[in-house]
């Protein structure tokens, strides 16, 4: 074979190889694009509306693990919780009561009828009070909803309450939450209807406490109620964990 023939053969092989590679690339690219386009189309068509699949009144299957990406995943747990009898009794020194229309409203600290007044407190007032609400390190995680409201009897503060929003991701769950703080210097009664299997006694911030866990995850009412001398501090949450309420209790008691 002469040199020119050899050169031509090499050139032919080189050109064929390059052409084949280009062709293969085009075929691979087209196939890749076609398959992805097909998948995209079928995915868009299959996108379901954001609606629950469980029927009304459904309760959780025993042992089932909830799929928290499923719309309405938590509703069967709320349904089951609502069917349970509510706890009534003494827990960690706190008299927990469900709603009971026969229970008369009770006196607060011997305050004679007609002598109590409600007052909105300023932050200066609040700092003076022995049962004030100071969230310390958790102040940045919450924002007050309205001013604290105090009940006074003959100029003596007997109860105090304030509501807070909990910022997303700060209450132990991914979303936002709410926090209600009730402080009282008189009495150990608290009305919070919930089933017995969500209540437990505990110790929080060094004090005996009645602890209520949410229904599931951070859904449903949770609470930590501390028994304090002649009164209590109750922290009630929605969309938050018990661990978050314990942190709040520790800040308030600090």
């Amino acid at each position, binding site marked *: 074979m002469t040199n020119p023939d050899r050169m031509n053969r090499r050139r032919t092989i080189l050109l064929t190889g390059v052409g084949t590679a280009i062709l293969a690339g085009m075929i691979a690219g087209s196939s890749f694009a076609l398959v992805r386009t097909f998948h995209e189309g079928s995915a868009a068509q299959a996108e379901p509306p954001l609606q629950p699949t469980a029927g009304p009144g459904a309760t959780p299957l025993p042992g089932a693990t909830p799929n928290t990406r499923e719309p309405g995943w938590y509703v069967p747990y709320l349904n089951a919780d609502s069917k349970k009898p*509510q706890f009534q009794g003494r827990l960690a020194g706190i008299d927990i009561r469900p709603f009971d229309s026969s229970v008369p409203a009770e006196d607060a600290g011997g305050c004679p009828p007609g002598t109590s007044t409600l007052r*909105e407190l300023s932050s200066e007032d609040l700092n003076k009070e022995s049962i004030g609400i100071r969230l310390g390190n958790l102040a940045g995680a919450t924002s007050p909803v309205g001013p604290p409201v105090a009940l006074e009897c003959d100029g003596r503060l007997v109860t105090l309450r304030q509501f807070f929003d909990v910022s997303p991701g700060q209450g132990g769950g991914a979303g936002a939450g709410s926090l209600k703080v009730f402080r009282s210097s008189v009495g150990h009664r608290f*009305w919070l209807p919930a089933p017995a299997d969500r209540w437990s006694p505990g110790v929080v911030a060094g004090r005996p406490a009645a602890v209520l866990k949410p229904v599931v995850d951070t859904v449903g*009412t949770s609470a930590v109620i501390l028994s304090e001398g002649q009164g209590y501090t109750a922290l009630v949450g929605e969309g938050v964990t018990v661990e978050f309420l314990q942190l709040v209790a520790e800040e308030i008691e600090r």
Partner: protein
Amino acid sequence: MRRIILSASVLSALVGVTLGILFPVTTSHALSAFSIQVYPGGNGYLSCGWHQTCLSPYPTGAALDFGDPTWVYFRSYGSGSSGGSLAGQGRIAYVSGDQCQHLTYVDIYDLLGNYRSEVLYEHVSSGYAGYNFWIYGGTPGSTTEYYVGQTIDEPHSPTCPFTGMHVHEQATGGGMSKNTSDYPDVSKCNSSCWLLKGNWTYWVFTKLWSY
């Protein structure tokens, strides 16, 4: 040579198909937006306007009072772009200490279980704590009405210096916006803003969310 080209083509097609299956287009869930307007839980209207404690001289605050009701309802008009008819769940809670002993709440959770907001119906007694119900939405929108309790005359309690049967309706969480310009009053609604079907102007609170 032809055999080589044919084999390369088939092989590259297989590679393309395989890669297309392994790396599909990832479509994010379409953004769903919801809005809820909350309406008076009672029927009548008291004159103290937006207030906190409803004690004269009625300092501005987060609540409206509705008088003359016996039965109190959570009432809302919801809409959403999810393609379904539901916006979320309402759940009744009853929480009370020694300061005004009738605090009934409706907590609003979205369809994925995220807490969204809370409405307090004060001076309302409820034996329905823990009950849960669907809050309707959809396009163009739909209403929800759910019984939550009945008003209580508080003065029998020395701890609650209020008079008269009424519900004190307040947004206590979730950053609900209050209607300060066209809120329900007797000049607009007479006895009930809720009963003015088709006129959804006179809401009390509103809440928007999306995911």
